[in-house]
């Protein structure tokens, strides 16, 4: 296969670009763009695509409220959340060298849920709701740190990381349930909708603040990305080519948590996207991190925006959390993967 390698800053950053990659990215961009437009036009009030175009380009302004205030931020947030979840999953799978890992399975998402529900139950009246993302990210970070520390025994083995994640996740879920039962009905319902994963009521301020949060891990990924390819081969190999394995593992884990925690903060527990997106992406392009990450982000964005579109149009006028649909596709997919990798 023909590809070009882009090297910058003394080979510190290297990115492989192939024809196939360019075509795949173009294809996904078209698909995601299509669903994006569709999700601007669909809903309880259908707006023809032609009018959506006109509205976006400023030729008419009769749909300003529906398109620009309600649907546009929601669609954008779906894209961001999906992309973040996909890349978080990709990092984790490469790191753990297990195709079945994802932030929701090893407990990072439960940590974020605990952070958010604690915030809703105790902080809602006192502190402004705009700090909810911070609580979720902190919860995710704490969970990841705990999982990492407990799994540490002269290094961290992937299986131990997953098992301990499962155990810790059970404890955190118990705490979440505890708070749900303790709080009043109104708070319970609010927390519940959040937990199932919904981008209902997304606003422009959500979109901008999510972008700010996502900007933190991206530089790290660009700088350290090439190390992830090597990590996939094995620890011994990584050591022998001069990579500080534990330090890198730690940085990658943190990046994955930042991405997953941010996504959880804005969209609640949308599960299985972090699992599915990397698998779909790997089937299509070369296994080199930066290129793979771009495709994974696009696939993840596609999964979440389509899940949200289905969730809010299928049972009109009811708005079902998108998380129900990602789980409906994702869990069978996971079971299929389990079947496929049965001999590993």
């Amino acid at each position: 296969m023909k590809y070009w390698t882009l090297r910058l800053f003394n080979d510190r950053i290297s990115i492989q670009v192939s024809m196939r990659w360019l075509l795949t990215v173009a294809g996904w961009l078209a698909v995601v763009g299509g669903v994006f437009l569709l999700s601007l036009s669909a809903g309880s009030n259908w707006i023809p695509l032609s009018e959506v175009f006109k509205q976006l380009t400023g030729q008419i302004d009769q749909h300003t409220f529906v398109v620009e205030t309600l649907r546009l931020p929601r669609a954008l947030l779906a894209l961001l959340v999906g992309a973040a979840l996909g890349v978080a999953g990709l990092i984790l799978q490469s790191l753990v060298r297990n195709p079945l890992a994802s932030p929701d399975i090893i407990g990072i998402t439960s940590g974020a849920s605990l952070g958010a529900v604690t915030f809703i139950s105790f902080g809602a009246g006192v502190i402004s709701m705009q700090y909810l993302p911070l609580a979720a990210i902190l919860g995710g970070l704490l969970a990841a740190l705990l999982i990492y520390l407990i799994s540490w025994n002269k290094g961290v083995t992937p299986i131990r990381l997953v098992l301990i994640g499962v155990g810790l996740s059970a404890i955190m879920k118990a705490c979440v349930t505890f708070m749900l039962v303790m709080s009043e009905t109104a708070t319970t319902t609010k927390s519940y909708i959040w937990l199932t994963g919904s981008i209902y009521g997304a606003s422009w301020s959500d979109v901008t603040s999510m972008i700010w949060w996502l900007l933190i891990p991206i530089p790290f990924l660009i700088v350290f990305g090439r190390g992830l390819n090597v990590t996939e081969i094995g620890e011994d190999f990584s050591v022998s080519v001069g990579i500080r394995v534990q330090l890198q593992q730690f940085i990658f884990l943190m990046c994955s948590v930042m991405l997953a925690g941010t996504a959880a903060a804005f969209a609640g527990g949308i599960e299985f996207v972090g699992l599915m997106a990397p698998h779909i992406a790997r089937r299509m392009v070369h296994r080199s991190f930066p290129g793979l990450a771009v495709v994974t982000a696009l696939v993840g964005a596609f999964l979440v925006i389509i899940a949200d579109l289905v969730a809010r149009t299928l049972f009109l006028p009811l708005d079902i959390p998108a998380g129900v649909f990602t789980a409906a596709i994702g869990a069978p997919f996971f079971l299929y993967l389990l079947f496929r990798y049965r001999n590993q």
Partner: protein
Amino acid sequence: MLHSPLVKWIGLIGLFLAVALLFLTSLAVGQTAIPLSETWEALTQYDPDNTNHLIIGTSRLSRAVISLVIGINLALAGVFVQALTRNPLAAPDLLGINAGAIFFIVFAITWLEVSSLSGYMWFAFLGAAIAGGTVFFLGSLGRDGLTPIKVILAGVALTALFVSFTQGMLVLDEQSIQTVLFWIAGSVAGRDMDMLMSVMPFLLSALVVSFFMARPMGVFSSGDDVAKGLGQKVGVTKLILGLLVIVLAGGSVAVVGSVGFIGLIVPHMAKSLVGNDYRWILPYSGLLGAAILLSADIVARIIIAPQEVPIGVMTALIGGPFFIYLAKKGVAKK
């Protein structure tokens, strides 16, 4: 570890007494503390005019009985699951059985408008069977058979699927959230004795079958090939163990909702006490399970009085760290 049969018998009697004492304590402790002597009187010579007796008769007795029975069930279900999967990290809740049963109960309530207790029970059995069967099947695929990591991952995925569907149904039907939330959280408080009574015939028959399984399980634990060589019909053993798990775990969920981790912890405790002989493991596990659930319930009642911690939360807070300890110790590698 207790070695000689005599010591094991003494230990068993001691455990039995401990359970009896916890049972009485569970009747005595609560918002109104009742002296043990009066608790005893309430059981032996019940006086409907005495307020304390009334409290015990109307609310605390059913609670203590449910904790006792369900504790035994959950522990035995754990022993059977671990024997069936030959996996020290298995438990009904980790295999998605609880989530499956709850999903089917909530489905029956919100969509099929089932409201009879026996209806809930059958849906719980159905859900337990579907979830357990799927996880067992998926986990046993592949050359190396049932590895702990595969079984647990399959369980986690199936749990996520069922939980997310349950949540979806609840979002659609906000009225039922408070009604079914206790099933999700797990609770022995305010539960109807009727529910226990409709499940009881199944639980009792499972209990009877259990005690005939002690010897076959011992043979089974040495591996499929050895068990076949010794003349055991391995398929039949697996089927019976599977059915026992479904009835014990599914029935428990129908009564108290999702109470996890008893099934994980207790078999380990029993094995560390009496070794690998299932004739001892089963009775020890039953009593230990009852003791743990009774104490968890007592603590849940007093720790943040006047409010209560759901029992499922209590057991997860005790059991989660234990699971982590087992995972860290590396039992999964065996």
